[in-house]
């Protein structure tokens, strides 16, 4: 098995301790709630669209280091992207953490630090909860997203 530090990389711990873009957004275009009933992780993602671009994104939530760092780093990675680009990035990210496809290294960029998650199958949902929630927000889903 891999070293624990492969999972808990410094950048992940840093985003867990000091999450970026954390907080509510009053003037969001879309928002959605995500929930992992298995471990109790909760997240809400707020998105502000301008033209076709994600002009701003914030999140609030409570959960483990992997889920919170993933949310924080996701907000940084997709700000300024179009919806289609965000979807494509999610697919690459999913391939990276679930190990079920070829992740485009250049595309995932900094998110590479989540590569260690693939050795911990029980934690894949922690890393992807925020992305599923983002997708629900962009698609205007009313029902909270559940990982189960």
């Amino acid at each position, binding site marked *: 098995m891999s070293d624990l530090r492969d999972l808990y990389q410094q950048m992940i711990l840093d985003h867990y301790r000091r999450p970026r873009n954390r907080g509510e957004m009053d003037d969001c275009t879309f928002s959605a709630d995500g929930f992992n009933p298995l471990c109790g992780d909760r997240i809400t993602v707020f998105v502000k669209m301008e033209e076709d671009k994600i002009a701003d994104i914030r999140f609030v939530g409570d959960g483990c*280091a*992997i889920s919170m760092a993933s949310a924080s780093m996701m907000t940084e990675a997709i700000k300024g992207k179009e919806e289609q680009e965000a979807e494509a990035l999610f697919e690459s990210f999913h391939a990276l953490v679930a190990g079920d496809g070829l992740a485009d290294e250049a595309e995932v960029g900094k998110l590479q630090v989540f590569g260690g998650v693939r050795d911990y199958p029980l934690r894949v949902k922690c890393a992807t909860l925020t992305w599923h929630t983002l997708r629900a927000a962009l698609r205007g889903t009313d029902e909270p997203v559940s990982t189960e």
Partner: protein
Amino acid sequence: MIVPAEREQGVSLDVVRIRADFPVLQQSIHGNRLVYLDSAATSQTPEPVVRAIAGFYRDDCANVHRGVHELSRRATDSFEGAREKVRHFINAESTREIIFTRGTTDAINLVAQTFGRRAVGSGDEVILSALEHHSNIVPWQMLCDEIGARLRVIPMFDDGTLDIDAYRDLIGPRTKMVALVHISNALGTTNPIKELVSLAHDHGIPVLVDGAQAVPHVPVDVRALGCDFYAFSAHKMYGPTGIGALYGREEHLNAMPPYQGGGDMIRQVTFEKTVFNAIPHKFEAGTPNIAGTIGMGAAIDYIAAIGRDEVSAHEARLVAHASERLSSIGGVRLIGTAREKVGVVSFVVEGAHPHDVGTILDHRGVAIRAGHHCAQPVMDRLGIPATARASFGIYNDDDDVDALVRAVLEVREVFA
């Protein structure tokens, strides 16, 4: 089986010999010795229990209570023999008071849907405690919602003990049922069941006790407790999953309507009318979990051979030892600090979510539970989303506590 411990104070179990009965423990996880500290979720199964289950399928498999052939007689004898073992295990008066169920949850649903449905009416109240597992909340909530009754909850103090004075005040003319956990699965708090039952009985209110976390750890005497119903599962006391038992006082069981209809629970059936079987069979519709029941009986034999007082003393020492070691680590806080605490040590590590604690411990082969422990109201009350929980059984020893402490120190390093 009991020998004086070689390196610790007092008398302890011969854990080395006990561990030899649990092949599952002889494996390494991620390159480390498996340290199983999740018995409160499900305990491991010793060889004699596995042999009893396999032996039924290999040598004696037949249906029970029917058939005149030899195999059916053997199956029936083993099945009813297990009922007598359960009776003796909790000191019930009669085997007629022992109903086999799928487990604790099934047993509580049975009582809620039969006894509860008759005892509780519109505008009435059912009292539970703040320490309940979801299995002793939801069946009552469903019943109350359906008939327009109300749940009342005995509050708890920060240390995880119940507020008995508040309980006294909650009991009123509308109270028709009390359902309480014996030992909390999330915090380990042992409730003073005898006293709580007596307070309810002063007002003629029946009491169900969820004993799932009690039977593996402490001697249980349902007549001494005085409760009306007592529910527990085999898989938390070294038996198989999918089988458990409900104790109910005979006069209640006789008066209660059946739970499910089908074979075995009947005496005579025509299309016009069915005459139900006598208790306990009235509550056991369909072919039962025969192998599981026999396995449950074998688990009772296994615990009895070790000695329930000895088990209790051994685990109390381990819980005290683990509590002391964990609380001496900076940034670790114990959750649930009742003086009467059994089987589990729940804790949180500052700056590290319980889920991350669980992953890091697993990396070192230490299996614990991380989460809300199917007791979300307990977590809400304490204002935390989850805890890490180490729970102990007969096969655990001080080496396991050492491994737990080492792994928690590593959590502190990673999240420093």
